[in-house]
């Protein structure tokens, strides 16, 4: 679903896991993340890492998304109820809608 302000909205219920929702805006080319925001009933430890992830993914080219996300989830960050791949796939699914 694309809102009038250009924000793509989507969500994914992970099987046996939690719900993650995503608000995504892309640059005009449709291949670079301008801004991304995640909400949902998943867990991330430490919690503040989610905001860090959102900032870290701004200006990321979609072709580098998977490596950027896996580099972020080091042993110091635990995400429960959602896997890093779910985060990437949700962004890819949303981005595919504007191509």
């Amino acid at each position, binding site marked *: 679903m694309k809102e009038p302000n250009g924000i793509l909205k989507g969500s994914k219920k992970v099987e046996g896991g939690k719900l993650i929702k995503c608000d995504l805006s892309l640059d005009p080319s449709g291949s670079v993340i301008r801004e991304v925001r995640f*909400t949902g*009933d998943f867990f991330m*430890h*430490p919690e503040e890492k989610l905001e860090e992830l959102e900032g870290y993914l701004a200006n990321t080219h979609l072709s580098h998304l998977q490596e950027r996300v896996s580099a972020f989830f080091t042993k110091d960050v635990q995400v429960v109820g959602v896997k890093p791949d779910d985060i990437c796939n949700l962004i890819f699914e949303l981005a595919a809608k504007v191509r």
Partner: protein
Amino acid sequence: MSEWRLLLTGEHNAFSNMAIDEAVLLSVANGTSPTTVRFYQWSPPAVSIGYFQSMNEEVDVEACKRHGIDMVRRITGGGAVFHDKMKEITYSIVMRESDPMLSKDIRESYGVLCSGIVRGLKRLGIDAEFKAINDICVGGKKISGSAHTRRYGGALQHGTILYDVDLKLMFSLLKVPSEKIRDKLINSASERVTSIRAARNDVDLKDVERAMIYGFEEAFGIRLRPGELSEGEKRDAKRLEKERYERAEWNFKR
């Protein structure tokens, strides 16, 4: 046998309840208070949402205001919960992060810490089982949910045990994502959620509290010694209530 502190703090509003949990986390983490189990209630009733949730997306804010229901965002992740008055028991358990009981893996810790509640429910003759990630179920229906965080060098897990449930009111306050309902292939909330009253209509909230105390003691091989909040914890709780939990900047952050 080691002794943990038992806190029965009774009814507080949502902001105070969440501030007390965090104040206890601070004092247990820095070693000034022992491992603590707390049972508490909410007055007025309240909706709490997970750290990563958006209040406006999860909660019908206007309906809560109409019903005089508090809204608060937790420092723990997880989902939105309606804490109805006299209809649930809320617990928290706080220990140092270095406690040998705790795995580094938070998913594993849910099973460990929820075993006290499972044991308490069994004490009431209710055949409950832990269901990953963070639920306790009876006959496949959820009766309890928990959320865990690690910070300041401590670990906090808090959660709710449903004593009774007013689903009509609950769903008039919460916006439930349809994806979640579809995934579980169950179209009625009453088929997914149960309560102690559904299994036992002859026990009151105090009976449940006593059973939970027994459950924690048996599951962890400890004694719960009734205690009070320390002066430092009361001060921290007041400060956190004012500076964090009462503030729209915190509750409506996401």
